[in-house]
């Protein structure tokens, strides 16, 4: 049984340009013409066995985030099937679910609840989460006084203490300082040793080649190449080089 499987998944978004008022609805209904749609992912298929780590490479707007959001269950595909087996933990955006006016400790509890921890689990893991985040002295300060790196530490710390079987991470790892990045990497490696599944989307090719066995390269919503991480990364870099040389 795969931990995560995409089967010919297509996802499009309506072009609505903020037109969500009643008159737009009526106009649409009178014309009977559906809105134009933008295809963010087109026929994407891949499979991730339990314990495997997959990197997703691609330029901005290639569909990486859409892919992760679909895997998290936030959005639904237009067609195709997504199979997920296990508890998903996702870190999709720095500060998602955090509020600047709440203190670090309050944000910690809120995010633990959002990520599915019960009251008892939150109380039991509170110390561990604080310890790992390294922001103990600022726990009673509002989050808006935190640096981006400190916020990231707290978010990552809550996430890794929610026992996910499948960890989905989008882009955010690079935010912390050197020391914390190493701590994150160490934690991810520990997850890998524990047999957890990881899906990592990033521009950082180094991160992908050092952490993932396999990778897929997305370009404008399609899988251009899939295979061993180092060869996909190399092809992506080469592809970029040609694109750059033709552009100039």
């Amino acid at each position, binding site marked *: 049984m795969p931990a995560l499987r995409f089967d010919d998944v297509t996802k499009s978004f309506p072009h609505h340009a903020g037109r*969500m008022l009643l008159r737009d609805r009526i106009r649409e209904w009178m014309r009977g013409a559906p809105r134009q749609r933008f295809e963010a992912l087109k026929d994407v298929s891949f499979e991730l066995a339990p314990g495997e780590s997959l990197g997703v490479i691609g330029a901005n707007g290639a569909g990486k985030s859409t892919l992760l*959001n679909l895997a998290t269950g936030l959005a639904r595909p237009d067609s195709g099937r997504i199979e997920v087996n296990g508890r998903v933990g*996702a870190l*999709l955006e720095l500060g998602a679910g955090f509020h600047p006016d709440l203190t670090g400790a309050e944000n910690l509890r*809120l995010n633990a609840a*959002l990520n599915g921890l019960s009251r008892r689990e939150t109380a039991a893991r509170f110390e561990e989460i604080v310890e790992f985040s390294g922001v103990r002295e600022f726990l009673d300060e509002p989050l808006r006084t935190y640096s981006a790196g400190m916020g990231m530490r707290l978010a990552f710390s809550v996430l890794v203490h929610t026992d996910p079987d499948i960890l989905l991470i989008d882009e955010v790892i690079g935010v912390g300082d050197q020391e914390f990045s190493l701590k994150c990497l160490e934690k991810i490696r520990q997850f890998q040793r524990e047999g957890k599944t990881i899906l990592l989307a990033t521009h950082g090719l180094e991160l992908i080649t050092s952490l993932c066995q396999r990778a897929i390269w997305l370009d404008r919503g399609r899988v251009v190449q899939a295979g061993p991480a180092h060869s996909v990364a190399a092809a992506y870099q080469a592809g970029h080089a040609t694109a750059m040389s033709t552009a100039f």
Partner: protein
Amino acid sequence: MRKWRGDPLFLIQNLVLKDFRIRYRNMSLGILWSLLNPLVMMAVLTFIFGRVFGNPKSATFPLFVLCGLVPFNFFSGALQSGTTSVIEGAGLIKRVSVPSTVVPIASVLSNCVHLLIQLALVLALTLLYHLPPAPSWLWLPVLWSLFIVFVCGLALGASAINVFIRDTRYVVESFNLVLFWLVPIFYSFTIIPPKYVVLYRFNPVAALVLAMRDILIDRHPPAGSIVVNMAIAAAVSAILGGAIFARLKPRFYDYI
């Protein structure tokens, strides 16, 4: 959508606490603001309708007005914040895998913090008028629970529709404005001409106002028809609102 394995009660509690903290941390007077609004309104309405127009029931008129204001305030505030809650919770709904149903419910329940403060004010004023606690007070938690369920249902429906038709919040705003006059806040139910009674009969906000006055001022249990009216309103609103929300929520992601 995939099942979210978590503790919904713990989550709602945290969301309510969040709203409460954000709202009050930025106010120097804190919860006094919750008391100030109904007190000022009570004073103004008492002056206008008790003194200027002259009202026969003026002995307990301030309490009479407050029994109307508190349900109306809760209804309009909770429905307003509930309606916009899904749009305003975009950061949550689009980025964290939580059941979106908790968002409007938590928004309505956040208003219950105000409500408790205002209800305490009503009870304090009741005692001040030498109307001691009576067994019929036990009806208050029952009726208010039904009313909160009723508002949650409305908020679920309105918040889901508001995602696709953003004018919904303005419709709700105007509706609340009209409702202020169509709920017997500063006048008595008995002065309404019989041919207009139907306007009030199926209005759960008016029903709660009448029940509050029955219980606190006239010191007897609410009429059976009021309880039935409110129970039916709560059930219909919860079922209908829940169904609308469930139907629309798979498409929220694409539209918020």
